[in-house]
């Protein structure tokens, strides 16, 4: 029972503590809200001051700007006018100078060019004439040389042609003679063999005896000489 009382006492105590805490917090909050309002007012005031300062500065700046702009415009206009005058004069002078210098340079260049051209023309005329003469001479020499060579070649060709014709003619005649001789020999062989064949089958030695003894008589001396020679050798 006591325990229950203890617990109940504790709970009551805790509840009281909480309640006290809640009260304290409410008080603190109330104080904070007040402070927040003060701070907000101060902030608003400061902002207002800043705004006023800004507006004043802006207006001042605008006035200064307008003043400066006007003065600057005047100065700039004067400067532009002066500069324009200077530029015009300078440009005129420069143009004149450039024109003068250019004219002189061009004249000098033209003169040099004219001189160079004259020199070239003179040299070219002289050299060209000499070269033309030389070329003409060389051409003449070449023509003479070529003509001589051509004549020599023609002479050589003609000589070679004649030599070939002679050689070919000789060969041709030789070959012709050889063929004719061969033909004659063959022909003679054929006819001779034919006659021998025919005569050989109809030999009549009796009828030939006159011929035989005539041949012996015609060669008697040779036969006798040969026989005597044989006997002498033996």
């Amino acid at each position, binding site marked *: 029972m006591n325990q229950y009382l203890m617990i109940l006492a504790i709970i009551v105590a805790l509840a009281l503590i909480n309640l006290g805490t809640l009260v304290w917090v409410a008080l603190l909050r109330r104080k904070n809200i007040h402070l927040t309002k003060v701070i907000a007012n101060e902030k608003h005031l400061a902002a207002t001051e800043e705004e006023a300062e800004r507006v004043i500065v802006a207006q001042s700046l605008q006035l200064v700007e307008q003043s400066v702009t006007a003065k600057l415009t005047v100065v700039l206009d004067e400067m532009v006018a002066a500069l324009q005058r200077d530029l015009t004069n300078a440009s005129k002078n420069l143009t004149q100078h450039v024109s003068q210098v250019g004219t002189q340079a061009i004249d000098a260049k033209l003169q040099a060019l004219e001189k160079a051209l004259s020199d070239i023309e003179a040299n070219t005329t002289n050299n060209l004439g000499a070269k033309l003469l030389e070329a003409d001479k060389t051409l003449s020499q070449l023509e003479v040389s070529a003509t001589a060579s051509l004549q020599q070649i023609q002479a050589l060709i003609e000589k070679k042609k004649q030599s070939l014709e002679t050689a070919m003619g000789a060969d041709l005649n030789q070959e012709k003679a050889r063929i004719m001789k061969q033909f004659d020999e063959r022909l003679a062989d054929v006819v001779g063999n034919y006659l021998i064949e025919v005569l050989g089958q109809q030999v009549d030695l009796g009828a030939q005896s006159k011929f035989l003894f005539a041949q012996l008589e015609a060669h008697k001396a040779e*036969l006798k000489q040969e026989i*005597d020679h044989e006997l002498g050798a033996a």
Partner: protein
Amino acid sequence: MNWVLPDNIQSPEQIEAALLDLSRLSDWLRRKTIKEGQLDEELATRAQAILAPIEQSAWTLELVDEVSKRLESLKSTAPLVRITLPGLPSPKLRAELVGWLRREINPNILVSFSFNRLLAGGMVIRAGSKIYDFSFSGALLKQRSRLAEMIHGV
């Protein structure tokens, strides 16, 4: 002894045959001195041809031996001529040719005959180291160019 080489003994072969016949005749003559008998007729004929013109009555052993010796000598020493004809020569032509050669060239000359149909005509004589071509074929072949000319002329 008046014996000369007869024309019917023409070649060395015929000398050999004659020597054989004479040998047989010599035998017969030796026997004859011992005993009488008849000589073979064919041998007598051939011996007569060899020993002509000596008659049979004069045949003696000495004569036969002498002729045999002469023939033996001729066989080795007589000059030889070879005649080639286009055909076989008749005995008459042979004898005529041999007779002419012995009469005109040398009395002991021997002749050997042969034939070659391709000669066509004429003859070829070989005497010693020389050849005499009297043949028709030789004449034709020797004159080929002339023959060709004649053919061209035709």
